[in-house]
Every structure is written in C-alpha cells, then in structure tokens.
C-alpha cells in the first residue's frame, strides 16, 4: 500500500478543498473550470507527461468529487460548470463508490519477477536449486528467468543472497483481496463489480491515482448551505484523526453546520449486546464459531464470495445502522450523515435507507479547511454520559470489537477468539477453507483493514500517529502527546 502522504494525496486534498471553498462562496459555477489551471500553473514542472495531462486529471478528480461516475458520464464536450449545475439540481446515488480514470492508468505490465544487474552469478546458485519449475538459466555469468515457465512463487527472491531478484507487482491487482481489479482489452484498469467488496484497497494503492472514489459530499454540502437539520454520526476511529480531542472534534462539526453529533460507539454498544446474546446461545447449543458483523466490506465478502458464512455471521446490525436509528428516534426529520474511514459503508448505507450521506475523514478534512475551521481552537463540548458505551470506541482497532462483545457476554466460561486482522489475498483464501475446517474459536472478529478501521482507506493520518492521539486529552496538544509512553494493551 502507498504511504499515506504523497504527491497524489496532496493534490487531491487541494482539489477537494478548493471545490468546497468555491461552493460555499457561491462561486463554484463561475470558477470551477479555472481550478485545474490554478492548481497546475504553467510554470509547474510536471510529474506526468505534461501539465496539460495533469490538468485533465484534476478535471476528472473534480468530476469524481462532485459525484459523477467518470466511466459512464464523461463527456469531454461538457464543461465542469455544467456538471456543477447538474449536481445542484439532483443528488447522485451512493453507489458505485469507485470509478476509474482510464487515461491516468499506466497499464502496468503483468506482475513478474526479474533478475537485476545485482546478480553475480555465484557458485552456490540457490535460485537454481530452489526454483520448483526449473525456469532459471545462466548465461553471460548471470541468472535469467524463463517467463513462460515462471509461476511467480517468489522462491528465488527469498533465497538470493544479493537481493538481485526483484518483484514488480501490479499494485491495484495485488491490493485487491478478491481479484476484482482487472485490465480490459485496451490494457486499462477495470473493476469487476460482481466481485468487488468495496474495501477501497485498490484506490489507495494505485500510484497513478487511476482508481478514485466517487464522492457524495455535494449532497452534504448542499444541506449544510440550506441549514437543514443534520445529524453527524461519527465512527469511533475519528479520535486521533484531527488535532483535537473528541469533544473538540464534536464542537468543530457543530461549527461546520451539523445540527447534532452522535458517536457511532453508542450504536456499537447495541451491536455488542446483540452479538453477546447470540454468542451465548450458540455456545449453549454448541453450534461452533460466530463472526462479527460490523465490517461492511466483510459482509459483502460473505455475500459475494463466502456464502457458507451467511449463518455464521452475527445477525446484529452494524453500529452505523443502530446509530442511525437512534438519530431518527431523537429527530425523525433529521438527515443522518455517517462520517468514517470507510468506503464500504457507502454500499451498506445505500442498502439501509436510513443514512442520507456518507463522508470519509479525508473529505471532512477538506470541509474543515474550506470552512476555515480549526479543530484545535474549539472549546470542548460536553460529551454527556458516555460510560455505557465508552469502551466501544475501541471498535476502531483490531481486537477491540471482540473485547467489547466479550465484556457483555454473560457466560461463565472463557470465550476463545480469533481475530482476522486485515483481509488480503492470503486471508481471503484462508477464510475459504473454513467451509471444510471451521475455526476452532467461539468468536471470529473480522476487520477488513489491517489494524482496524484506523487504517481504513478514508483516514487522514497514519495509524502510528492516530494511536498516540487517542484517549483522554492527548490530542489537545498533539506534539507533546507523541512523547508520552503508550500504555501497553491489556
């Protein structure tokens, strides 16, 4: 996966911030076509072939940010301002959540292993003796790989004492746990929607920024401008994403224009209660393992690839679903906006019908900057009594959800638990074997992103930073908090 901060994310944040700024100043229609030129000025030294291509890419990023599906709705004759006018009139649906920019795609050649110049043609030749397909030959004092026989096992790379074997992957294909990212006949990236589980790993792995998320932020921005009643429901992973405490983040959301804010941890408490009850009855009946149901990408994975897990996963709704119910109970006319690190939640929201919008932390960051809101300058709002669900903030971390369920399960015996900490290609294969060989555990906690939601595709900061800013008042002085010693996990 790519480093979180790179030229692509920087440009993307600039594009998003600029669009929102102009939108709130009521100048977006007039100025939107100028944004690509402003952000990519003539004197810039381009990193793609030329500044004109870079400008074209900014145009596409604006389209995706406005909510258009580039694959289907790209009309090169149409100006960005007419796209903006279109979006002002009608909201775009939540899915599909990804769209591709074929002209950004570099058509990476198929993944392969290569012997570099570092090969010294040594006497031991471990590559030769360890290759299971005998595809290594020596000529000119160097090793060569016979492409037609190579099965890409990587053995030669492991055993070379000179690190002379390099693996050149196709980042998007390697990141996808379910083989949903493919190349079309023209060689450009294409997503197979029948397989895609919406995890978003491909989008954050492509170094060319060719897979982009289709945002639905304009739906929210329009409501903010109209001062509609809106409830922001914030995922537990939000703590640590901004320079301020949870109470300050809550205040910042109110200052942005949301009418009220509810922590999704509150809904997570409900999820835990249901799961704990279910776990207890399964244990009594001895029906074997149960999996959690909070991760949307995992839920789609079950539906599309692992149908035998249908009756293994908990029937509890996700924390987001319960929290949306709470929000509607408190005010039935409110629009519920989920704010989280996750792309898959958009798919879940589309199927639920109680959610009116989904934002990522990254989109919220642009919103804060565009509205000139400094989280750190906010007073702390009263979070009221959170004792009931405070521990559920740990849902953002791998192991956290299981711990909360365990705490609420009123069973005498010990509950054994197996964490699925991130679903990659290998883990997806392991999970397939569970049909024949069930996991020897009572509770399987599944989180599609390694480390948990704090490593989701929509985060602002790296997990290593977020972890040190979570809890208590730490984030009120972020620089100093970094020096504090982390408490060992209980």
């Amino acid at each position, binding site marked *: 996966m790519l480093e*979180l*901060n790179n030229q692509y994310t*920087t440009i993307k*944040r600039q594009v998003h911030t600029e669009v929102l700024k102009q939108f709130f100043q009521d100048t977006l229609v007039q100025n939107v076509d100028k944004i690509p030129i402003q952000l990519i000025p003539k004197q810039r030294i381009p990193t793609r072939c030329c500044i004109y291509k870079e400008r074209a890419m900014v145009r596409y990023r604006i389209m995706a940010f406005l909510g258009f599906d580039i694959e289907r709705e790209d009309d090169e004759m149409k100006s960005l301002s007419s796209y903006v006018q279109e979006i002002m009139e009608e909201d775009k649906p939540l899915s599909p959540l990804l769209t591709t920019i074929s002209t950004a795609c570099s058509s990476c050649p198929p993944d392969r292993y290569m012997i570099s110049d570092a090969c010294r043609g040594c006497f031991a030749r471990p590559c030769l003796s360890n290759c299971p397909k005998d595809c290594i030959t020596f000529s000119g004092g160097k090793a060569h790989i016979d492409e037609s026989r190579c099965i890409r096992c990587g053995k030669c790379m492991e055993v070379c004492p000179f690190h002379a074997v390099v693996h050149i992957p196709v980042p998007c294909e390697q990141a996808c746990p379910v083989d949903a990212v493919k190349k079309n006949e023209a060689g450009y990236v294409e997503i197979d929607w029948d397989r895609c589980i919406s995890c978003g790993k491909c989008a954050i792995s492509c170094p060319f920024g060719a897979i982009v998320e289709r945002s639905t932020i304009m739906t929210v921005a329009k409501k903010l401008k109209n001062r509609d009643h809106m409830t922001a429901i914030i995922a537990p992973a939000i703590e640590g994403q*901004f*320079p*301020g405490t949870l109470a300050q983040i809550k205040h*910042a959301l109110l200052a942005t224009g949301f009418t009220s804010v509810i922590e999704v941890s509150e809904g997570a408490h409900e999820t835990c209660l249901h799961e704990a009850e279910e776990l207890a009855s399964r244990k009594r009946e001895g029906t074997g393992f149960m999996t959690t149901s909070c991760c949307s990408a995992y839920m789609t994975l079950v539906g599309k690839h692992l149908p035998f897990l249908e009756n293994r996963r908990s029937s509890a709704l996700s924390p987001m679903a319960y929290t949306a119910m709470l929000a509607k109970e408190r005010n039935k006319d409110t629009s519920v906006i989920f704010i989280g690190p996750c792309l898959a939640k958009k798919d879940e929201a589309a199927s639920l019908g109680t959610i009116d919008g989904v934002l990522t932390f990254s989109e919220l*960051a*642009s919103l*804060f*900057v565009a509205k*000139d*809101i*400094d*989280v*750190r*300058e906010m007073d702390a709002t009263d979070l009221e009594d959170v004792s009931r669900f405070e521990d559920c903030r740990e849902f953002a971390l791998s192991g956290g959800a299981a711990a909360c369920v365990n705490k609420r399960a009123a069973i005498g015996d010990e509950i054994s638990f197996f964490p699925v900490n991130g679903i990659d290609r290998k883990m997806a294969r392991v999970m397939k074997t569970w049909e024949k060989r069930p996991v020897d555990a009572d509770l399987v906690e599944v989180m599609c992103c390694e480390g948990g939601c704090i490593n989701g595709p929509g985060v*602002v*900061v*790296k997990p*290593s*930073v977020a972890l*040190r800013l979570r809890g208590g008042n730490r984030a009120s*002085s*972020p*620089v*100093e908090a*970094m*020096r504090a010693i982390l408490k060992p996990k209980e």
Partner: protein
Amino acid sequence: MGKKEKVSVRICVGTACFVQGGADLLLYQDFLDPVVLAGCDIHGISCISGCKDDTMAVRPPYIEIDGKVFGEMTQDKLCKLLREAVHA
C-alpha cells in the same frame, strides 16, 4: 565553552497543516537522529496563519525553527534543516 542553547522547533498543529501532511511530522521521535533530537526543543504551536497569507510562496504544513517559518515541510526536509541548525 558555554552550553549551547537548544534549537527551538514549533510544529504548526492547526487543522490545515495537520491534514495536509503535518501529522507525519509528529513522528519526530521516530525519524530524527537521536543526537539532533536531543539538541532540539520541540513543541506545538497554534495555527500561524501561513495558509491564509497570500504572500506566502509555500504551502502547508508549516514549521518554525528559531523563529523562522518554513513551509511544505516533510520528514526528510525537517531532518536536514534540524541537522544543520543543531550542528551550526
């Protein structure tokens, strides 16, 4: 020889800096050389308004070293700047 004063480093923790790469600078304990780290006095500073100043030629994230403002800061650039400042 008198004891050398520590280099004063102020990392902007305003939201605009933080979300545009500034958060990475918070990992200073991991990426700075221990000797350099010992020679610096590192603290946070509220938004220094660099992002709202149109005359500013560089973009966020900003950092202040001995009173001088630097922009578009990265871990790598900070390493270099502080090495020079500490060993000056």
